[in-house]
């Protein structure tokens, strides 16, 4: 059966936008947390502040942006019919906000009921979301690497959520569980099997579109999500016995697959036919370089045990991956997605192509450039803070300022949309 052209299920603009506009607020909260806690937030991977910071970014910024983007992309790019998107967004969006805040509060206060409530809320919200979006992605007749990546990513999110909820309940109720092994597997699924797979699948669509690059090579496009899935599954086998080394092998394989994707992306960018560059281009390229830096750091930690065994070594890797890779890539993508959806929905409301403000009139390019530079500086300072703890608070301040500016820029875009929409209604 062939896919049809009638992608009728494109959701109302409020569906993706409520998620995309909430995401930066979690980034602001992450910056403020660093400002409040100072160096102790980056003391070790297991420090309560570090865990709270990690989950503000992963279950706050990243999850909001990714869930919102998927509700737009699944019907439009994969032809998947999402059941009642407005209702799904209306329930899942607030539930995920409360769940993320509850989890962060749990890490900071170590109060068991908060862990349990976070687990229950995440299980309910993501269980519902995954059922609806999962059915859409499984039932689509479209084929290809992006569809494969979307399917694997949703499976990865399910695994991450199940492991996360188990950890939260286990931790909250002090159950006898192999918490460290579970946490390691949860991390591999969350960063590899879910986030990186989704990033690759979306890149296959957007990178050629934004920069007029050649398409990603077909074999590589299928191999990377598959390898990330296999690596996450392999890492999970460590639960079968005293096999913690399998976790390390799995994490290394996942990183190797990500390196293959990053090198290909950089190579494609070099072969782009559009010479004009913009902030989205620079942020994406920085994200790809961050993947390579993560790999180089892992190799260095392996060969120089004095470095690798330092409690701040995993913190360095975490900052590179969470802030260097994912926040930068998402930050760049929303600057294209939000103005373009604004423009398309204005067309839908009857504004003629010539009369609607163009994409660059939705969010000023100078404002985008300023925020992108601030974000890159914040990531740099955050990395420096791992080496020089006194820099933690300045890094937090910069991060909060950058995410606040991102929010302000997105709101400016939405305001243009609302102003023009009202003008049409009045006419």
């Amino acid at each position, binding site marked *: 059966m062939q896919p049809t052209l009638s992608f009728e299920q494109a959701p109302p603009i409020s569906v993706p936008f409520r998620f995309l506009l909430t995401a930066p607020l979690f980034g602001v909260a992450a910056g403020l947390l660093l400002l409040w806690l100072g160096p102790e937030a980056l003391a070790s991977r297991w420090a309560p502040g570090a865990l709270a910071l990690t989950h503000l970014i992963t279950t706050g910024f990243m999850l909001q942006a990714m869930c919102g983007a998927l509700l737009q992309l699944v019907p439009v790019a994969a032809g998947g019919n999402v059941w009642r998107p407005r209702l799904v967004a209306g329930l899942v969006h607030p539930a995920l906000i409360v769940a993320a805040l509850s989890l962060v509060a749990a890490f900071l206060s170590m109060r068991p009921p908060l862990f349990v409530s976070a687990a229950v809320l995440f299980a309910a919200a993501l269980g519902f979301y995954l059922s609806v979006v999962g059915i859409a992605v499984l039932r689509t007749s479209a084929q290809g690497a992006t569809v494969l990546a979307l399917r694997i990513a949703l499976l990865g999110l399910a695994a991450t959520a199940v492991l996360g909820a188990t950890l939260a309940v286990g931790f909250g109720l002090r159950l006898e569980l192999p918490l460290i092994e579970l946490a390691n597997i949860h991390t591999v699924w969350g960063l590899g099997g879910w986030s990186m797979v989704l990033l690759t699948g979306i890149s296959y669509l957007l990178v050629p579109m934004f920069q007029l690059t050649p*398409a990603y090579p077909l074999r590589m496009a299928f191999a990377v999500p598959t390898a990330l899935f296999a690596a996450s599954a392999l890492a999970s086998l460590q639960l079968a016995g005293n096999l913690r080394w399998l976790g390390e092998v799995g994490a290394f394989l996942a990183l190797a697959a990500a390196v293959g994707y990053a090198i290909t992306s950089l190579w494609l960018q070099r072969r782009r036919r559009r010479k004009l560059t913009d902030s989205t281009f620079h942020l994406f390229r920085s994200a790809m370089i961050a993947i390579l830096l993560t790999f180089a750091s892992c190799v260095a930690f392996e060969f120089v045990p004095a470095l690798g065994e330092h409690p701040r070594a995993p913190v360095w890797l975490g900052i590179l991956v969470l802030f260097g890779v994912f926040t930068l890539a998402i930050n760049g993508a929303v600057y294209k997605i939000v103005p373009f959806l604004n423009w398309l929905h204005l067309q839908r409301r009857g504004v003629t192509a010539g009369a609607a403000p163009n994409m660059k009139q939705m969010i000023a390019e100078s404002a985008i450039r300023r925020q992108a530079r601030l974000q890159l500086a914040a990531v740099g300072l955050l990395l420096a803070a791992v080496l020089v703890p006194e820099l933690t608070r300045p890094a937090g301040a910069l991060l909060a300022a950058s995410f606040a500016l991102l929010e302000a820029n997105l709101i400016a875009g939405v305001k243009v949309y609302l102003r023009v929409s009202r003008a049409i209604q009045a006419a």
Partner: protein
Amino acid sequence: MTGVKAAAAGFGNNPPSLLRTKAAMTSITEPLREQHKHCDDLFAAAEEAAQSAHWVECKAQFAEFRSELEAHFSGEETVLFPAFEQASGMSGGPTQVMRMEHTQMRGLVEQMAGAVDTHDAAEFCGAGETLLMLMQQHNMKEENILYPMCDQTLAVASGDVEERLKAVIEKK
């Protein structure tokens, strides 16, 4: 309403090599795929010239881009789409969506033409950015879905569609 909703849908399908349906067969539409790439190149050259304020060059590149794009639309609207509609019996579906997107793109091309005349780089690049996004998702939908459907449908009873299409898009 298929057309309106699909147009509002936004991001198109996977790039050609990543989501190609199985209906390769005889490809009447191959010259159209090639022309997509050619238009992209001309667009990129005009955009680069506008960004560097080389307006004489921009004007020439843009004129060529506009003429090539118009020939492409014309080939689809006057030859390919009617032939497909007649052969398949589908007149209100995918081709309608594509026609509507052509109208939207023409509106943006008009805006860019005005910016060339007034040497307004911000306006040219702003409308250009919007056009590029629209054009790319439009091309992906055509290359992944509509063209394979056309190749499949018209392979049996194509008549002189191929020749007529070539004549229009090559501006003969």
